[in-house]
């Protein structure tokens, strides 16, 4: 299981219900394949940086999922055949998240080492010093 973000742009002329229907379909593909949908974010209408299929605007939708590669492949195939979807991108996020965690733990360790009393957090030791 890996974490992915799937972002796609829907044609802005299609009604809201259509977008919900697309979301439902994609969600169905993920859950039926054994994946998990962590978040569905409708980012709303935005101006595109360049023209895509004669459109200057698009409705952005973001899926945050944890799934296998096969499921992602299937999602991409579905998105490709949908007429309303004009562009999509899949980004793997678990490696980046792991890297961030490492930085975070390193920083906390350093903060702990700096304060003279190791078990208190940096904020507490500052308060003690002020007293």
């Amino acid at each position, binding site marked *: 299981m890996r974490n992915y973000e799937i972002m796609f*742009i829907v044609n802005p002329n299609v009604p809201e219900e259509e977008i919900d229907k697309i979301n439902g379909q994609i969600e169905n593909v993920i859950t039926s394949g054994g994946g998990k949908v962590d978040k569905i974010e409708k980012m709303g209408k935005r101006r*595109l*940086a*360049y023209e895509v299929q004669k459109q200057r605007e698009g409705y952005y939708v973001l899926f945050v999922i944890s799934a296998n590669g096969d499921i992602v492949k299937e999602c991409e195939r579905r998105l490709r055949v949908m007429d309303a979807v004009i562009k999509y*991108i899949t*980004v793997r996020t678990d490696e980046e998240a792991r890297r*961030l965690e490492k930085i*975070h733990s390193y920083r906390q360790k350093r903060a702990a080492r700096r304060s003279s009393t190791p078990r208190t957090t940096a904020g507490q030791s500052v308060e003690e010093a002020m007293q």
Partner: protein
Amino acid sequence: MKSAKEKRPAGQKQYYRRKKVCKFCVERIDSINYKDAKLLSQFIPERAKVMPRRISGVCSPHQRQLNDAIKKARNIALLPFTTE
């Protein structure tokens, strides 16, 4: 900077140039995300190219992350490839 100016050997530039710092190191921005078009657009000059390091002062690890993020953002039409 007065003392540094006096020590400088002849032929070098006389004016003082402000040291450039990496924005991401200073502000402690760990992850450069492709969705943050507002942040990325600061590093996209007029012709929509990636701003070189010698101008922006971004350190090399962050420049690499920035480059990746910009390319992802371009792919999903958050940033332009070029100006029209």
